């Protein structure tokens, strides 16, 4: 185990609590950077102009096609808007946590089919993602997109559907092994009766569809409803460690932390269930700056980091090519593959991904301002591109690769973006 030097540790903070450094970000020290990141200023941005929800078409084929195209256009707008938020935000942690919670409470537009409701959920993550988990989880359990995604509308007193109850305990709030099948069945009863109005974009509890009887969940018996179910699950002793483990997994390393680290993070999270306090403790852990804690950048993290470093906004790139690239890498925002979210770690590092990454890097590089590279001699260019991307240091392997393209600044930049020490956050 070796610790990163301060500049590399600052870069790691920016990678893990945001989407990587922008020019100038690496000038500050570790403590100052952590403080700035952990206390994001409000960074309001106008919402995307999605237009009105697309009305459900009748049976006419032409009308259906038109509706599908209208939704596809709204989806494209929504994805572009969020990528732009990630790239341009002055509050990186807010967007990083929005991204984290999106993967945690993984909901896919492919089933929800409502960009408006996906946006609403996204704004919930943005507004509540750094606060207390009680508030966030209560919002999510009655979130219209989530309700549609996990078939909660089919969950009624007459015919309970366990989908949302099961995933809430297994994937969202508690973790596997800490509840029984009976708990799932009883929890489903607590969550009965929610309906979604697609036109107004709201969720509502229909009392007649709700099971108002006593349920025994996790050893407690009362007339649980959605909110009291959330409170019950979050109060289980296993929940804080589960939440801390998930944040560690996505922000620090795919290797679980030692038990004592988990204990400290859970203690910081505490009775108020503060995500902010948990993250503050996380970056204060000595092992946070252990050089061994590398983390494979997910495709969106890699792309957004590259655009941030280069000051390029997503709308400068051909929208369809950008989306096709992300799709080929296996990660389109708002479309996680299933309720468990996206894969992690080395699962991203496939042969086909290597090639797709290069194609995307070329696309980005074509729009980049490369004067900081062209203005120096060819021998100084690898160093210039290193500073541009905020990489700690090039390995000899990458130096040898870069040496082949020093006379072509855009190729140099594309190759640098594909270097192992850039695709994997060190």
């Amino acid at each position, binding site marked *: 185990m070796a610790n990163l030097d301060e500049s590399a540790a600052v870069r790691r903070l920016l990678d893990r609590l945001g989407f990587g450094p922008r020019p100038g970000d690496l000038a500050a020290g570790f403590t100052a950077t952590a403080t700035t990141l952990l206390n994001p200023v409000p960074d309001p941005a106008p919402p995307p102009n999605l237009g009105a929800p697309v009305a*459900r078409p009748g*049976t006419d*084929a032409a009308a*259906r096609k038109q509706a599908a195209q209208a939704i596809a256009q709204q989806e494209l707008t929504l994805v572009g808007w969020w990528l732009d938020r990630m790239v341009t935000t002055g509050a990186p942690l807010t967007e990083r946590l929005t991204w984290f919670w999106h993967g945690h409470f993984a909901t896919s537009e492919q*089933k929800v089919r409502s960009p408006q409701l996906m946006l609403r959920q996204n704004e919930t993550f943005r507004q509540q993602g750094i606060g207390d988990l009680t508030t966030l989880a209560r919002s999510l359990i009655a979130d219209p997109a989530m309700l549609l995604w996990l*078939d909660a509308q089919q969950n009624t007193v007459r015919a309970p559907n366990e*989908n949302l109850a099961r995933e809430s305990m*297994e*994937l969202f709030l508690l*973790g*596997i*092994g800490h509840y029984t099948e009976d708990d799932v069945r009883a929890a489903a009863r607590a969550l009965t009766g929610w309906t979604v109005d697609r036109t107004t974009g709201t969720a509502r509890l229909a009392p007649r569809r709700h099971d108002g009887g006593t349920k025994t969940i996790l050893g407690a018996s009362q007339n649980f409803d959605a909110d009291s179910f959330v409170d019950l699950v979050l109060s289980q002793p296993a929940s804080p460690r589960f939440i801390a483990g998930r944040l560690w*997994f996505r922000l620090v390393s*795919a*290797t679980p932390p030692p038990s004592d680290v988990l204990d400290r993070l859970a203690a910081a999270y505490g009775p108020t269930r503060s995500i902010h306090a948990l993250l503050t403790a996380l970056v204060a852990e000595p092992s946070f700056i252990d*050089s*061994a804690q*590398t*983390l*494979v950048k997910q495709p969106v993290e890699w792309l957004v980091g590259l655009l941030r470093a280069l000051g390029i906004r997503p709308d400068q790139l051909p929208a369809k090519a950008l989306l096709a690239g992300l799709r*080929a890498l*296996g990660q389109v925002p708002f479309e996680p*593959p*299933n*309720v*468990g*979210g*996206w*894969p*992690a*770690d*080395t*699962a991203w*590092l*496939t*042969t*086909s*991904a*290597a*090639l797709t990454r*290069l194609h995307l890097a*070329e696309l980005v590089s074509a729009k980049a301002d490369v004067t900081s590279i062209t203005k120096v001699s060819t021998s100084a260019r690898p160093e210039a591109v290193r500073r541009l991307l905020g990489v700690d240091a090039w*390995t*000899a*392997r990458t130096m*040898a*690769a*870069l040496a*082949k*393209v020093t006379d*072509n600044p855009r*190729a140099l930049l*594309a*190759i640098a973006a*594909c*270097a*192992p*020490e850039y695709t*994997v956050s*060190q």
Partner: protein
Amino acid sequence: MNRLSRRRFLFASGVTAAGALAAGATQVHWTELFAAAQTNPLRPDQGVLVVVTLYGGNDGLNTVVPAGDPAYQQARPELAYQPHEVLDLGDGLGLNPGMTGFKSLWDDKRLAVVRGVGYPVPDHSHFRSMAIWQTASPSTSVPTGWLGRWLDTTGDNPLLAVSVEPVLPPLLAGQHGAAVSLPVGGLKMPAGQLGAAFLALGGTQAGDSVATARAARSVVDLQDAVRVLGGAVHGSLGGTVPAPAQQSPLADQLDLVASLVEAGVPTRAYSVSLGGFDTHADEKATQQRLLTELDGALSPFVQRMRRSGRGQQVVVLVYSEFGRRVAANAGAGTDHGTAGPVFLLGAGVRGGFYGTQPSLSELDNGDLKESTDFRSIYATVLAKVLSTDPGRVLGDYNGRLDSVLL
């Protein structure tokens, strides 16, 4: 076991760290695959299984259609095919009009249609039902896919199973290892300076972390892939049928499989897939387009395989995670259902119907009742194609459908 093991399944399906997945995805060189074809080629007595997964829940009733049944016409007025529209198979059933190539194979007795395939206590969630099919464990969650467990019995040789999909499917994740994942398209390396620089990013470097080394290794593997298999997609590795300029991704996947089989690669199991079958609305046109795509990719593949010695060792298995509700919904589509047909195709298949067609009048809460357990098909291909005792993969399940294979 079952509580912990669901997590292990999620692990394999990419929810968490995916250790086995990653191991499989990048540890094998293409050169090893082709070296194996030279030193230890596929033997004539070794069967090859190609699994085709249809994601989304294919509507079985509009695939193998009981068009003449009044109950069918009544249940889905806007969705029903008329008897003269379907490709008649006898027994009051006909194939979807898009499946003309399947019909030819049926006429040649090389297509088996297993009817009413499902499992007890159906789950209507895509995620769970697909997990059940891929793990072959209907009642408890297990960490491994059924072909992954088969792989485990073979002594951890990942070369034996290959995924030709962007993401490795859980069915190929074993306890100890997983299938190798190969990219199907985009094997063209950038030329010139850029290409040379890109390749230089591969290779080992002192001090690399595991992940960083893996990132570099993916470039090396890509280089090998291009060198060894760059033309495989276009049939240059012994393939006799040049690929059309524009064909479906499934056809690309199957072209690659055909080339690998013909080259004598000792891989025994391949996984390919086609998605988009979740037809809750406007189903008829969408599903027929998809089935036409399936037919257009799979029929030429089966015909091509029938023409070569090694190809005749290939058996294709086509399944989806569930069929759909008998009655159409308000949106000219169907909701998640239960049992559906499974297809087996190939030179070694004894064509015809197997299993009983579920009744349209005796439904289980609006759903078809399963008449054939999917594990009986798995058991049969394990025994007769992969030469493995099914008990080592399927535990104490002992159903079989042996007559379906020659």
